[in-house]
């Protein structure tokens, strides 16, 4: 797979995880809005980091996922970490 398609599939994996675990609308997540605009509280990003650590072995440092991020920006951070993993 190309880097772009890896990121594309990761994006759907992450949006699926967020909507599945936190009951949020996947279409809204994919709309390009920031987590702030979607009213996602900051603890959800901490909870998401813990789930990514368990399910995908991706270890994010506290604060790396910001509520000012869009899903794309979050996935870019996660993808960079996944490359290191």
């Amino acid at each position, binding site marked *: 797979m190309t880097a772009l398609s890896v990121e594309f599939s990761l994006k759907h994996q992450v949006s699926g995880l967020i909507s599945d675990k936190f009951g949020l609308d996947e279409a809204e997540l994919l709309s390009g809005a920031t987590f702030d605009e979607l009213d996602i509280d*900051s*603890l959800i990003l901490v909870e998401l980091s813990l789930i990514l650590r*368990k399910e995908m072995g991706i270890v994010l440092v506290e604060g790396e996922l910001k509520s000012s991020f869009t899903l794309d920006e979050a996935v870019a951070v996660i993808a960079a970490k996944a490359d290191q993993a």
Partner: protein
Amino acid sequence: MSRAAVVCGLGGALPATAVTNEELAAQLDTSDQWIRTRTGIGLRYVVAPGESTSDLAVAAGERALESARRTGNDNDTEADVDLVVLATSTPDRPCPGTAPGVAHRLGLGTVPAFDVAAVCTGFVYALATAASMITAGVARRALVIGADTFSTILDPVDRTTRAIFGDGAGAVVLRAGESSEPGALLGFDLGSDGGGADLITVRAGGSRQRSTGEPPAEGDQYFAMEGRPVFTEAVINMSESSQRLLDRVGWTPADLDKVVAHQANVRILHAVGEQLGLEEKQIVVNLDRVGNTVAASIPLALSDAAAAGDLVPGHRVVLTGFGGGLTWGSAALVWPDIEPVTQP
């Protein structure tokens, strides 16, 4: 069979004054909804002016001793407590320890009595200390108390910590017995990471600040906590500690009937459940009614769950805590047939 410390009494005590989310919202920039969605807490209790940690510890200790009397049997003739271990990080005074005064007020004579300071992990550390002294033959019957009055060290304008923490005390009685008995403590996993000491702290009031000869900097006399990194550390360490202990005891997460984790935040409890693959019914929650009571949290959760019939004899139970230090620890047991006492 080998010698083990066996849980044979359980008690809890809360101060009289309850503080609702609405009362906090009237004083601080917060709301019932904000507190409930971020923490799961609806109510906490605070001590009255002049009331102290030892007052709650004595009440919980009396009730645990009464619980042990009610559930005592013919094999349980060693009625005299010969050890008191008190977990607290809000002692009555910086010096001396609070436990000797508690033992004295309980009429326990000149038994050894000392404090253990491991903040929210304090109860598990105190349990491990007392159980080890029993298995080593140093003690035969121990009163282990977790008691804290965090309302006395919170920053009055900190809406987060004031919403989370409440005062309380919980206690168990341990007696010498056999590892095959219900109630026997089957193993412990304990750990610490001092690299995270600044995440949960009262900066002033100890030798580091006092030796300067200067008064504390503004706000440093209060308890401070960095919520998000603490959330992450709490989830990872309680989950990993529980898993290490399960491996040692030979149980899987699915074998567990109840996990009684430190009642820090309901979202931490759910995240621990997620990490261990637990179902919701396996996780004991009582923080909605008492908040985070620090060292009292695990014994108060046990009292509530046992009194409500959610925790019944024969249940396989893991206790797991995480707190300042950083510290963490877990204990495993099969729940005994005991009657908790939570009222005077």
